């Protein structure tokens, strides 16, 4: 088989189905954590901003590309948060993502460390706790923090104890692509509020809004340490292209590429990553900050999902498969 790296005791055979589950375990884990952080930072922003500014809860729905179902009467804060945190019928909710982690980790059980299996049960228990703690502002913060912390602990256990084999590659690639995707979506949604002409009431608070954007992808502190003033262009450039902060789109794509290199027949997926890389390089942040950030983010999302498509057709559902001797 040309260009294939054979399985070895250090890198044992990985079933395509298990690889797919490792990848989705990574994506869902990142999704649960990202969604929790997003709701948390949006809550803080809403509390800070004057009500006249008209910043509601709908932008959050737009991030995950979802609408409230008929079970919700009004677009109240409680309805939106419930939908995004607790609604098992919403494929983008925290609870659904944790179900996804739970399911996929059961499938990948044999390639995952046992400590991780025990923690996922804990995470699952937190997520399915009685009541709907995210809906109430008083309990929301603590619950979201617990979710984020458990997700991070789970990531850390997997990072620190899992053999760096194919299964780990797929898990990591899944996490990185989901993270890149989420950062892009956040930009997309905040684009409406933050670029062009903010409403008069919101104008004094654009700095606050940009800070919230950074915070919702956990990059505010990293950005401030750079000592650059929080202009829209600097923020955008940072979110898209910074090499060092692990949550920028560029870092995520670079990291995904790095792990893709470990896999056989990676050509198409690597090429798709490179395409995202050039797209980011060519971005004119000056113009985006006052122009069509929305369209840009859309195109970036499409480019990222192209990587996913290539991974899917190369490893999970290949058209033909060669026999390994």
């Amino acid at each position, binding site marked *: 088989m040309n260009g*294939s790296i054979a399985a070895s005791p250090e890198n044992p055979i990985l079933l395509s*189905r298990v690889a797919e589950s490792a990848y989705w375990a990574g994506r869902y884990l990142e999704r649960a954590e990202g969604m929790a952080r997003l709701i948390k930072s949006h809550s803080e922003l809403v509390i800070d901003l004057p009500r006249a500014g008209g910043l509601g809860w709908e932008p959050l729905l737009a991030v995950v590309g979802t609408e409230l179902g008929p079970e919700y009467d009004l677009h109240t804060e409680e309805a939106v948060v419930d939908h995004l945190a607790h609604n098992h019928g919403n494929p983008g909710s925290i609870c659904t993502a944790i179900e996804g982690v739970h399911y996929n980790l059961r499938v990948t059980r044999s390639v995952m460390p046992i400590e991780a299996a025990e923690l996922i049960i804990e995470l699952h228990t937190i997520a399915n706790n009685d009541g709907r703690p995210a809906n109430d502002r008083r309990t929301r913060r603590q619950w979201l923090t617990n979710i984020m912390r458990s997700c991070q602990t789970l990531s850390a256990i997997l990072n620190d104890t899992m053999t760096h084999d194919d299964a780990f590659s797929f898990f990591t690639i899944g996490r990185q692509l989901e993270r890149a995707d989420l950062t892009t979506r956040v930009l997309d949604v905040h684009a409406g509020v933050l670029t062009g002409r903010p409403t008069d009431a919101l104008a004094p608070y654009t700095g606050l809004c940009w800070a919230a954007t950074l915070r919702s992808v956990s990059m505010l502190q990293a950005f401030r340490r750079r000592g650059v003033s929080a202009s829209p262009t600097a923020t955008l450039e940072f979110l898209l292209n910074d090499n060092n902060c692990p949550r920028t789109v560029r870092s995520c794509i670079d990291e995904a590429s790095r792990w893709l290199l470990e896999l056989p027949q990676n050509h198409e997926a690597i090429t798709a990553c490179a395409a995202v890389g050039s797209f980011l390089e060519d971005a004119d942040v000056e113009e985006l900050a006052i122009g069509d950030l929305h369209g840009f983010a859309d195109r970036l999302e499409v480019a990222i999902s192209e990587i996913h498509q290539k991974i899917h057709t190369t490893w999970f559902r290949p058209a033909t498969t060669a*026999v390994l001797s």
Partner: protein
Amino acid sequence: MKSDWTGYSSITFDELVDGDGKPRTGNEAVFQRLADLGPALVERQRAAEAEIRSMGITFTLYTEGSSIDRAWPIDVIPRIITASEWNTISGGLIQRLKALNMFIEDVYNEQNVVNDGILPAQWLEDSANFRTECCGVHPAGGVWAHISGSDLVRDATGQMMVLEDNLRVPSGVSYMLENRQISKRVFADLFRDLDIHPLDNYTEELGKMLSKLSPRDDVEPVIALLTPGIFNSAYYEHGMLATQIGAHLVEGSDLQVVDNIVYMKTVRGLVRVDVIYRRVDDLFLDPAVFRSDSTLGAAGLMAAWRAGNVALANAPGAGVADDKVLYSYVPDFIRYYLNEEPTLPNVPTWRCMEPDHRQHVLANLDSLVCKPANESGGKGVTIGNRATEEELDHLRTEIETDPRNWIAQPILSLSTSPTLCDGIIAPRHIDLRPFVLSSDEPFVSVGGLTRVALREGSLIVNSSQGGGSKDTWIVDESVRPDRLLEHRQPGQQQVQRSGNGQNPS
């Protein structure tokens, strides 16, 4: 003896104490320690349940249209068998499985057992698990049922007997192993003081046995555990066993058969599979041969097996002897194939298709247990003295319509073991499922899975029907209770007693 056991008594044979409430030989030390623990025993039970939840040990219950994962029910009071008795039991199991494997090999080939008049041809042909597709095949070493789990019960006289054999896809071994993990954690002190035989070697022996089945001896064998998938009630067990023996946990869709060779689809291409430990029923193994609607197996699997290119454990068709009518002949098989007397007796069994047996059964329905010949998990079983008139009438009609499908056995008063029920120690009926690995070096798990009927008086031990489980300790008789004195904690209160010794059963 400590007084808090004085209230404990059983109407039948009790595993821990004799009729005078004294511990049986070999049980003294455990009896003493449990008595010393007093109310702390309840805390250990809670600790065990917390462990189970945090380890995620579950089994799946199916209700209408949905399934729920339930925490595995364990009772911390161990079931004890002395090492000398255990030697006899495990010898008896090896003898039984040897004869059963010879029987299966025989019925798919020469059928001498029929030709020599031991088993009527009709009963064999009518066995629901007799697979003509397996005729003429000779699995390596003549072994068909590589992994089996026979259910043993003890009657009121203390006699151990075999209630049924499970030669298809017996489950429960992971719970046996987990129960030990749990009891080691909650009774760490007892494990220090007593010589409790370890059972960790089961999975190692399983892996070794499976490896030896590989048709290729020039490469490290690739072993796969074929599971029906994540929604199967035993998925937890499949995952645990695969992990422990280093097998790939595969589903039917992961397999592909090309030119009678079985491959699994991996991210690096197709990889040949040598041995499949299948936890999928015969009829779902190969849609090209059995049920064409099955997605749980792989087309071509049977052909690859017949060609000798892959080993299947257990072999298809091994369940032929699970038929309860054929079960009743096992003592004859042991005499016929091995020229030995069976060490472990069967439970006396009436075969309803034999006119005189049927007559007896129909005249005594209310004092017998009637079982369908080819069901498992307690399905379709009617216990005569607990059935309504209507149920018995219905049963009578069923037996008269299809006598081949029914057997009857006396209602056994299964032995009891002290069990914590809402903080009170009370006798509950139990059985035992040891696991036997058949090969040229047969192996019996050290002990087995003890299942307990948690409802008072109930004889149904299945976890799907309110059953629980216990760790099973094989202990040397030589340990004396005085060895334990130094650990005794004075001044502890005692566990609440179970009534006045009036424990209806």
